[in-house]
């Protein structure tokens, strides 16, 4: 029996006004797979992630996530799908400055209406922040902040983590440690991960490495 792909995108095109961002993108991701997506700055990698997450509207093409066609879902259904099945890690951390580290990590569980303090603590310990749960983000370093973001991305056991240049704001040592942690956690939680990066070294750590320009018009399954 053929396993249903986790994510199947076909013919994705997007432009802002008359400026094309990308066109004819095809992409396939299997469950538990780690895929790196390489591309130059400004090539549309982040926009592609937003489109895959149903946050940005496509000009054309279709996205199937866990068997559901995103085009057929309304805003509420897309939000629910993100809430349950997706985790995000951003280049600029994006933690809420007024929530404690613990509350930042707990946020996805609260959104799902199933608060779980033990799971939150377990994730904090998994990312090495077990004793810093009560701190505020302003009291943490950049590397620590990205660990918070990783814990938050995985705490609700999503099927897919979308990581957008997660080490872009970090020094090389921290970047390496954070990447190790992200990949290890993704594997441990059994999630798939689409890692957008412009670092060849980071991309080498993935199961597969794709270049955005190669995806245009050529299926990458």
């Amino acid at each position, binding site marked *: 029996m053929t396993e249903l792909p986790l994510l199947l995108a076909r013919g994705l095109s997007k432009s802002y006004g008359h400026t094309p961002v990308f066109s004819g993108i095809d992409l396939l991701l299997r469950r538990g797979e780690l895929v790196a997506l390489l591309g130059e700055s400004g090539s549309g990698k982040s926009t592609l992630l937003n489109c895959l997450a149903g946050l940005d509207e496509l000009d054309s093409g279709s996205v199937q996530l866990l068997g559901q066609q995103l085009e057929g879902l309304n805003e509420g259904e897309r*939000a629910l799908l993100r809430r349950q099945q997706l985790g995000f890690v951003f280049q600029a951390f*994006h933690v809420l400055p*007024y929530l404690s580290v613990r509350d930042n990590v707990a*946020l996805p569980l609260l959104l799902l209406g199933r608060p779980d303090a033990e799971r939150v603590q377990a994730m904090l310990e998994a990312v090495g922040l077990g004793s810093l749960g009560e701190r505020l983000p302003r009291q943490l370093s950049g590397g620590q902040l990205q660990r918070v973001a990783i814990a938050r991305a995985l705490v609700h056991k999503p099927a897919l983590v979308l990581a957008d240049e997660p080490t872009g704001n970090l020094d090389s040592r921290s970047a390496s440690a954070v990447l190790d942690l992200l990949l290890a956690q993704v594997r441990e939680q059994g999630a798939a991960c689409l890692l957008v990066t412009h670092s060849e070294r980071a991309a080498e750590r993935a199961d597969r490495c794709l270049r955005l320009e190669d995806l245009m018009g050529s299926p990458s399954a």
Partner: protein
Amino acid sequence: MRHAMRLFVWLRALSWPALRHQAGRQALAVLAIALGVALSYGVHLLNGAALAEFGSAAASLNGQPDLVLRSQPGTPLREADYAAIANLDGVDHASPVLQGQAQALDAQGRPFNLTVLGLDLLQAGAIQPDLLPRLASPLDGLDPGRIHLNAAALRRLGLSEPIPQGQVLRLRAAAPDSGAVQSLSFQVAAASPDGGPPRAILDIAAAQALFGRLGQLDRVDLRLAPGLSLEEWRAAQRLGPGLTLSPPPDEGARLGRLTQAYRVNLGVLSLMALFTGSFLVFAVLSLSVAQRLPQWALLGVLGMSARERMALVLMEGLALGLLGSALGLLLGWQLARLGLQLLGSDLGLAAVSGMRPTLRFSAEQLPAAAVFGGLGLAVSLLSAWFPARSVQGMPVAQVLKGLGQRLDGGAPVWLGPGLLALGGLLALLPSPSWPAWLAGVPVAAYAAMLAMLAGGMACVPLLLRLSLRALAWLRPSAGLLLMRERARDQAGEASRALAGVLVALSLSVAMLVMVGSFRDSLSQWLSQMLPADLYLRSALRGEGGHQAPLPPELIEAVRQSGQVQRLSLQRSRDVWIDGLAPEQELPALQARELREQDLPLAGPLAAPPAGPQDLTPIYISEALRDSLRLQPGQRSQLRMSPQGPALPVFVRGVWRDYARQSGALLMPLAAYQAWSGDRRITELYLWLPPGADASSRSEALRALAAAPQDLEIAAVGELRSLSLQIFDRSFAVTVWLQAVALAIGLFGIAAAQSAQALARRREFGLLLHLGFRRADVLRLLGLESLLLCGVGALAGLGLGLGLSAVLIWVVNPQSFHWSMDMSLPIARLAALVAAVFVAGVLAAVLAGRQAIGQQAVQAVKEDW
């Protein structure tokens, strides 16, 4: 200088593009300053124009004498005295004057009061040139059959120049002592150029005949020969008994003193909009700074010093202030012109309501314009000070990391309650004896209100945190967690966002409660002071401007007519009381049949002081109590003239008198008549049989008079509704000032929330990534603003009630010498608070809708 130039260049290069980007909010801040400056400057101009007009009218009326000869009250000034002083060496001109009130019929046949000046036109030309008509021949001025009316009087009569030949005016007047009515006709001659309220000029002999005061004068205006020393000449004169020689009174200054409390209170009220506006400016600048935190941090990294960053923010505030103040001064001028055209200005006194002041630009107005413009600038700079300080002290590296910083200055928790307590203490301070220019200004009470307002604002973070505790029992959810933690973290910011609306709402609540309480107290007072069904008095004026006495035969006819069930008599006149200062107005005495239980008493009654003497009880008004510092139980003496026989009295009680600010006293009619021998009656209180029609009875009573037009008869309902109408009209301006302040406050909350929502786009974007729907984000914003506006509305209500207590129990008694009972207009208060609450929540949600468009998703990508 180089530093200033550099700042200016930075302002243009760095701040201007950012401010232009938020043009709407900056324009709002400029408008808030402009409105605040315009209202306060406009009110100042209105009052100033009215005072100047009155001063100039008084100067025209009084002329420019060097000295004025008068007799002491109770001693008549005779023509012989005039002849004696006119013949003294050193007197160049002596002009006799007699003044009184006469009744005329207007163009519609309705009676109205006309001030009549009796002058010797041949003499008056040298002293009162502004009053004199243009006469074809000087001898025309000696014709006792001619009357010269000013423009206001001609208007009332429906006449205009040139006056038709043979136009006759009939005047009726009562003799001040006997009340005997004279009715004389005059030929309307050349008009007087006097620009004041309706006035007429007669030859002095005709005026004496009209007022039944043959051979009597009110004063003689003197002009001395040039080069004489006024003081030396005056000291050298030996005057007859009871005569005084003094410089002319400064009527403008007198009116200034009389209306000081009104003008100061209106001025303070008009500053309310500027005060509220300052919080809007504060909110706009704070949020503008907050939005540009990364920019400030970057500038810091690039080498702009902390002091320079602070100076740049202050420059932004200064620029807003300059624009707002300039606009405000122009707007204030136009507002004052419009106000004078539409409403006139009576300085809160019906006595000067006939004036039509005009506004003319002169160099004398520049200092006031500088003061009010400077106030706008100061408010802007002060509003910019706190955000400027926060930019100065910001941790540059942390902000660049995108972790923001608290703009909260971290005011200690005790500050709010401490300031509230300080306000309470200041309000309780006894009223000290201020210098004359501050008399009637409740300085400590205003300081108390300021402390309470600041304390109320400082309490917002505390209240917010307390209300968060109250939410702790709710089931945890992501929205609740976000709302709670953000509110906890940003409590200081909430205080800034709420400041404007909190001040405006609390002041509006305070004014609503004060005006409502005053109106209720006035209504209650009217019920007590007007117990009868009908009130009858003469339409003619007698001594001291009081109503002329009623003919005894009319009183008897009313008693015998069968039209009334019961009748009560009153005598009104001025009276002397011990302790009265020379410049003080005489208190009005109302002697009538008193029933203590019906009096509007402002405190308990006192027993007569122990002693052998039999003392007559009197009831003094609050104004008289305060000016004489007389308390219930204390003794005093009444006199009918300064040298007349004294009546020993004791203060039995203090009553509320909302009709006069100059003081009044009540005493039993029988005691007055026994003391004075004066049997004249000036007012009748009439009770009708049950079911009788007031209108037909009043017509029947009017028919009893020999001259029905000389009577004024009013039903209790008419008097009540007229009084309440006057009250509502007097306070209409305060309602408008409140509305403007409240609108500015609401603009403030809308601006703050809108800026907040925009500043939080990245946060909203992240929430959308995490699985929030746009509706969830909107709900979150709604929840936050419900909490914020709920706390603001409750704090505003509580603070407003506290402020109203200061207004009712301290400001009004000290400024206007009247007390009132506090009553809460619950429905209107609820409507006001609910309106502000709903408007605040709507403003926040609408601002949020704008902020969570597609840009929110894009904002997550923004890399500072």
